């Protein structure tokens, strides 16, 4: 993956966050959110660039891979729902799942390669339960 990113291929990380209210038979989905973050390494500047689309669009430039990873995978302080929409004493779950995919690149045969390469991953869904 690192080699791929360092080769200049933009890699898209998509985080799917779903807030659900626990129910008797099934859970009610209150909010669903998709965070898209694109990381790209600029070989000329020797720097990593991360594009965030939520909560606001911004571009962050970093020179260290470790810092880049921190920025990239840190899902904190994401406004999900207004607190007044949550009922007190109720149980809620937050499901989060991440997946990655290769972005468009200028490489020749990139579409053809897509079919035969095994790039990309999809994590399992993590679930956190909390009471309000």
């Amino acid at each position: 993956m690192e080699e791929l990113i360092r080769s200049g291929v933009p890699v898209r990380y998509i985080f799917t966050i779903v807030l659900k209210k626990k129910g008797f038979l099934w859970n009610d989905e209150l909010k669903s959110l998709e965070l898209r973050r694109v990381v790209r390494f600029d070989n000329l500047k020797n720097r990593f660039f991360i594009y965030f689309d939520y909560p606001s669009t911004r571009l962050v430039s970093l020179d260290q891979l470790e810092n880049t990873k921190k920025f990239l995978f840190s899902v904190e302080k994401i406004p999900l729902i207004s607190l007044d929409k949550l009922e007190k004493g109720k149980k809620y779950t937050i499901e989060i799942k991440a997946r990655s995919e290769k972005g468009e690149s200028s490489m020749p045969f990139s579409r053809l390669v897509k079919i035969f390469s095994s790039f990309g991953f999809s994590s399992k869904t993590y679930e956190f339960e909390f009471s309000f």
Partner: protein
Amino acid sequence: MSLNSLFKEKKGKERLLAVVIVILLIIFAIIEYKLVAFIRPLPKYSNVLIFAVININLLLILVLSFLVIRNLVKLLFEEKAHLLGAKLKTKLTVAFVLVSLLPTILLFFISFQFLQTSLAYWFDIKIERSLEQAISIGRSYYKDQVNQLRNLEELISRQIVLRCSNSSTGYLDQKCINDIFSPAAIGDPATACIRKLPISYVCILDNNGNSIWQKTWLPITEDVPQIDKEQLKNLSSKRQPLVTSINLASGTLISVATPITTQNALTIGYIVVGRIIGQDIMTQLEAVKQGFEEYKQLRVFQTPLKTSLLSTLFLITLLIIFVSIWFALKLAKSITEPVMMLADATHRIAQGDLNFRLETRGRDELSGLVQAFNTMTKDLKEARRKAEEASRRLLKSYSELEHRKAYIEMLLENVTAGVISLDPRGKITTINKSACQILQKEAPSLIGKDYRELIQGEDFSELERVPQELVSSGRSSLKRSFRINVGGVSKSLIISFSLLKDKNNRVSGVLIVFDDLTELEKIQRLAAWREVARRIAHEIKNPLTPIQLSAQRLKRKFGSKFQDEELEIFNRCTETIISQTDELKKLVNEFSRFARMPAPVLKKDGIEPIVKEIVEIYRPLISVRSEISEDFPKLMMDSEQIKRVFINIIDNSISAGNASNVLIRCYVEGAKAVISIADDGKGISIKDIPKVFDPYFSRKKGGTGLGLAIVKSIIDAHDASIEIELNKPAGVIFYIRFNIDSKDKPSSISSK
């Protein structure tokens, strides 16, 4: 099965094939989607096109595989069944497949090798090193630009801290900052160099990241880059400048942001300095970067890239192979189909079927051949129609000729006269039944033979002269009477010779027509003799009684007047007169009987009583035996006349042959009732046999020669026949043959 139903069946199969292909397409799409989805998550729509292309390829390959395999199997079966044209089709298919397959496979391996080599060249270490060096230069240049900007920032930052900041409050004086960059500050060596710095943009921000002063040398149209406040806050702790770059119309603006810190390390704000790097340099740097990145990416995807390229090559090769095989099959079919069609049509023509027309498509040589074949078939059909018409006419003529020939043959066969035709060389060309019967010859053995073979010996010399005489005389016909010997029997013939002439009056042969006058002569002779006999009887019989009575009277009256020798002479003379007169009376009676032969009174009667009576009559004289078969039928006869026949024959046997034994046999032989009378007398010479039944023919002394003539007359009057043969070891046998009435025929006829 009609052509229409065959066409419908074919259509149905094609529809089924289409449905199968669609189902296969769906199944393959699902399988592919599932396979890829399990490997990694798919973007929802990005790969649809590729899937479609691959599916179409697979579908094409499947369809082509099916077509190729079906056609190959069909070809195999046709070859096994020894169908007409199958061998040619196989040969053409193999030839076309080889012609297309060999270069395709060769090209595939060359392309494969070429691809391998090309990929090896792509990822050659020298190229990688060159690219790394190129990017390293680019990075150095970029880093150098950044470092220069940092140095400038440091210089500006120091001046701002020294001149424009309050170290205790951290306040930055905007006017002071403005003065630093103002032309009014000319003469101040410290700020003079700042104003000459190669920068395009300077921005001073407070601690919160808000711009408090900025100056730009950028074109008016260009926007000033915004710095992320979040990142600015992190700058103080990291000691690393924040470098950003933004593409503008005039080039790429590289910005470096660093914190402004006092001598006691207090951050009082931030400074951002930017410089435009020219478009041409940036383009080159970008090109270097792109080249390097693409190379790196290709290296990362080397294996899948190789797999994909080889797979594509393989798919295309496979496609070409299948297409070429399919095309070869189609081409072979397009060539062999008209040939097979022509061969089949030739077979049909050979079997006599001309009522068809071959369909032609296109304008190639084979179509021309098919058209020529159609023309030929049409001509053949017309020719056959004409031939059939001519044949019908010929057949009609032939039938008429045959009819005429049969009629003439019938005439010839039924005419009682003998007819013989000879060719100019004297060879027999025709001979009818009567001629054969008269000449006692067999017709088939005579055809083509010389006419001289008809008559042998002395008789021929006279006959031989006639044709020459006919020609020399200038007449068209000549008539001659001949007496010839046939089988030892003398026959009287009247022969007419006619020249056969064709339309051009050329002699093409001789026609000989002759009649057997032997029987006629016999009848005429018999009639003449009867007339003679009647007259003799009439003239002689009348004076005989007075002669005899006179002689008896003389004997009675003058017998006593003579003595001794005179008496003896007298008595002898009168006795002689009386006895001779008796003999004469008998002779006259015979003559009279012969002359006045009454017509037979025919009635159905058995032969046995007559035979028994005959046996009894002759018992005192000779031994007469009889054998009568049980199935011997009753005959239509005059019993008295038949009795006369027996008596005359046996009398003849006794008187002429001195026979002492006679055997009478009555039996059935075929359709004839035969009565044979055999004796053991001295018999007769063979040459006298034909004359036996002639009147007045006798070999015995004092015989009248009328006995057997009367027999013949009676037998003829009964519509029967009589023959005489020599008996063995001695004597003769008379055969009398009666026709049996069909009602009297025995169920099982036995010949004895």
